[in-house]
């Protein structure tokens, strides 16, 4: 109900925009020039998707591995030490991650990864040719975001794996399975939906993250041609322009529409994932 309420309010505020342009023009439009009355969301949506994709590529596999390791192999005492630590890290505010991004990741990308990519891989791989010398861009933001959602995914994965019944572990082990085989089977047979849920949680978090991304992504509205290019995700668009939006016609409606878009993607993705998860659960039972 609240979801519908939020969506309705945002829709209402973005009506002036929707009555002037068609959805096709808005979502497919590539030019964003509020002063001339042009509102094309495509580069922003692309920016959001790219940043999230990089973040997930960085985070998911190590996070799931870590979660499994924590649940299956680490001793009781080690877990008692590591878990609170993870919880602490989940709680660190995004501004702090953003700050760390500026202090560490951006210089790292600018002075090390960038030049290295230029020298060794360069144009050999798609998306690796280097064009942006500043360090602010897709890769930096993706790295920061990836690190940010990492503890979240680990924590949920760990919980899921701990919920695998002990009898199952014993049954598999007494068949002479190694611990890794036992783990593999528990993941495949029991843990998969939960781990998927963890990934979805991470995705939502990364897709909607504002400050940490805004601080490191460079904020240039374009389709990235390399992984070092700056882009301009949706949340950053909203956050950056709230001050001036009152002075330009339709600008406010346009930003509200951006928020609506963001909401739409996250909700659709969440509901879709939930359907998949429920299917999986039913198939396993």
């Amino acid at each position, binding site marked *: 109900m609240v979801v519908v309420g939020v969506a309705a309010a945002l829709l209402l505020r973005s009506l002036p925009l929707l009555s002037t342009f068609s959805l096709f023009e808005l979502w497919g439009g590539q030019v964003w020039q509020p002063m001339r009355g042009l509102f094309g969301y495509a580069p922003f949506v692309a920016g959001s998707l790219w940043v999230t994709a990089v973040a997930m590529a960085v985070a998911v596999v190590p996070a799931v591995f870590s979660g499994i390791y924590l649940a299956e192999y680490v*001793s009781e005492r080690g877990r008692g030490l590591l878990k609170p630590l993870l919880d602490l890290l989940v709680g660190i505010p995004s501004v702090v991650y953003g700050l760390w991004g500026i202090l560490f990741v951006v210089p790292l990308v600018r002075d090390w990864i960038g030049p290295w990519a230029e020298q060794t891989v360069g144009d050999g791989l798609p998306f690796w040719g280097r064009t942006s010398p500043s360090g602010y861009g897709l890769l930096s933001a993706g790295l920061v975001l990836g690190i940010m959602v990492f503890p979240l995914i680990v924590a949920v994965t760990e919980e899921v794996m701990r919920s695998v019944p002990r*009898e*199952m*572990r*014993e049954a598999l082990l*007494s*068949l*002479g399975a*190694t611990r890794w085989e036992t783990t593999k089977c528990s993941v495949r047979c029991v843990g998969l939906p939960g781990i998927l849920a963890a990934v979805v949680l991470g995705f939502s978090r990364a897709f909607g993250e504002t400050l940490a991304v805004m601080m490191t992504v460079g904020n240039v509205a374009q389709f990235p041609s390399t992984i070092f290019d700056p882009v301009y995700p949706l949340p950053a668009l909203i956050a950056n322009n709230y001050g001036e939006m009152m002075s330009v016609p339709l600008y406010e409606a346009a930003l509200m529409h951006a928020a609506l878009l963001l909401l739409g993607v996250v909700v659709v993705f969440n509901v879709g994932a939930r359907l998949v998860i429920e299917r999986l659960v039913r198939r396993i*039972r």
Partner: protein
Amino acid sequence: MGALSIRDLNVWYGKQHALKQINAEIAQNQITAVIGPSGCGKSTLLKSLNRLLELNEQVRVEGQVWLDGEDIYRRDRDVTEVRTRIGLLAQKPFPLPMSIYDNVAYGPRIHGLARGNLDQIVRAQLEAVGLWAEVRDRLHSPATRLSVGQQQRLCLARTLAVEPEVLLCDESTASLDPISARGIESLIRTLRDRYTIVLVTHDIDQARRLADAVLFMWLGELVEYGPAQRFFEQPQEALTQQYLTREIG
């Protein structure tokens, strides 16, 4: 193949001394029943025989268990090999959350026992536990849909499919209805010729029906063990007598 020899076995749960200086020989191709009141360490003893106790971190095991002349607790011993040779049938049937076929096939698959003739192995094992006729046309439906008695037989088939030498049964009939329990019992009896069977039970009558040899445990100590006939007819220890006449326990 499959004779076990327990030597000076001690187990601690944290500070609690759960098994005290156990020494026993378990002969091959016999059914050895371990009896005693609940909490006396029967299950602990059983799980120490295939090193499943190690899952619990507070547990400390000292002493040796020899299987065919080799200590299974030797430092460089491969645990998976030990557990392959010593199978366990748990108290509650726990079918793996997969199809009936995959339940039986899982073990042979990971051990690489059967290239190509997996179907035959599955069929043979299911026939051995008398389940084949009941499930032959729904092999690929989830195993959890079977009745509890069928599930326990499936678990037995799963355990036998990895070709163990020793079969440990941890009160495997306790959570079943009487008819299924009888079914499992008669199955166990038919398996005696091919496996060494160690059977934990709190049911003295069951031990009487099945066992060739009996171990009697009391508060973590091994009170008495010997051939079933002598054990039941002329128990040596006063404690055993009292337990058998149900004065204690």
